């Protein structure tokens, strides 16, 4: 199979280029893209990429495979390979450090901005802050985010304003804390988001939903935040 890999070594290359590598795929097996990268690494050890858990939990190996973002470790070849060809590029929109490794600084900065931790100004109880089952259910579909950046780097609004638009991943997390019954800073959190860029750059094109490897729905969360902002203003 022909695999075309995005290559860029700041020490040697003036500009990034695509390197075609012929990889022998074992007969009758549907390898994950990460396994294909492993085979490439045997052919050319200089190819750089991030990986850790290899089972879709750590979120290290977010890549653009045949034009679509996803986690290489849980994306089978059968899902992305077209005409026996696979094009592997780094996540779009973030600065490339080397080959398939991107600088996630912008992405983390947006995550930091939404204060991803519980804020509660009441005195802490002796054991723990309790939550009803119904309130806990509201966190499902929000807390599972692994911060792989597949969604935010598939979002044109984030490409053009990575410094001002929080992005799907950050907003999903923002909603996770807005809706948490144990958090008392809802008003402050909403005030932070109430500007033309942070939330409202979302145009609802749902690229985030279509690529999320965990099947989460940032568009819906953003819709909820919008409604909360609207209610706050009226």
């Amino acid at each position: 199979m022909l695999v075309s890999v995005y290559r860029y070594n700041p020490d040697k290359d003036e500009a990034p280029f695509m390197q075609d590598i012929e990889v022998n795929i074992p007969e009758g097996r549907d390898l994950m893209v990460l396994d294909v990268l492993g085979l490439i690494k045997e052919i050319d050890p200089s190819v750089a990429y991030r990986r850790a858990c290899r089972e879709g939990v750590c979120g290290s190996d977010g890549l653009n495979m045949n034009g679509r973002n996803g986690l290489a470790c849980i994306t089978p070849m059968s899902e992305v390979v077209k005409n026996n060809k696979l094009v592997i590029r780094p996540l779009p929109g973030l600065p490339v450090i080397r080959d398939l490794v991107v600088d996630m600084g912008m992405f983390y900065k947006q995550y930091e901005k939404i204060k991803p931790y519980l804020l509660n100004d009441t005195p802490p109880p002796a054991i723990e802050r309790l939550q009803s089952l119904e309130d806990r259910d509201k966190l499902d579909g929000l807390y599972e985010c692994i911060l792989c950046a597949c969604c935010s780097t598939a979002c044109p609004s984030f490409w053009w304003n990575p410094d001002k638009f929080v992005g799907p991943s950050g907003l999903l997390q923002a909603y996770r804390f807005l809706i948490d019954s144990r958090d008392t800073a809802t008003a402050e959190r909403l005030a932070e988001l109430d500007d033309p860029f942070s939330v409202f750059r979302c145009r609802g094109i749902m690229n985030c939903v279509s690529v999320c490897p965990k099947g989460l729905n940032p568009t819906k969360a953003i819709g909820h935040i919008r409604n909360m902002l609207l209610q706050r203003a009226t």
Partner: protein
Amino acid sequence: MAILFFEHFQLTCPSRASVECERAVNKKRPVNLDLTQFRFPLPAITSIIHRVSGVILFVAVAFLMWALQGSLESPESFAQVKESMSGFFAKLITWGIVSALLYHLVAGCKHLLMDIGIGETLEGGVLGAKVTLAVSVVLILFAGVAVW
């Protein structure tokens, strides 16, 4: 003197490795944003057409206002504007503007539905995009019949 010279040499000629290191750090990092290389889902495509149709309308409204003003000046100028709008090419442009308006309207209605939480799932988004395209194509065909 020899020591001074040595120090000077060290200051102006750092080792090759550190030069390369510095170059790599200072160099502007490339960004993978070649839009032709990405696969866009249908809702993304309907969204960019929404944007494009909006820009077309923005430009077209200026010409339409100009034509409106011309048609209101006198009975002769009204006849003149009417005459100039009846050619095949003029009708084609009119149809184009009406098409942009219809598409923009339909896609806008989809946005309103999404604002009240309809069509925000993965399947719902794709379905919404398909419906937007289908409804606009039908309306645009009707508009073509109306223009000619």
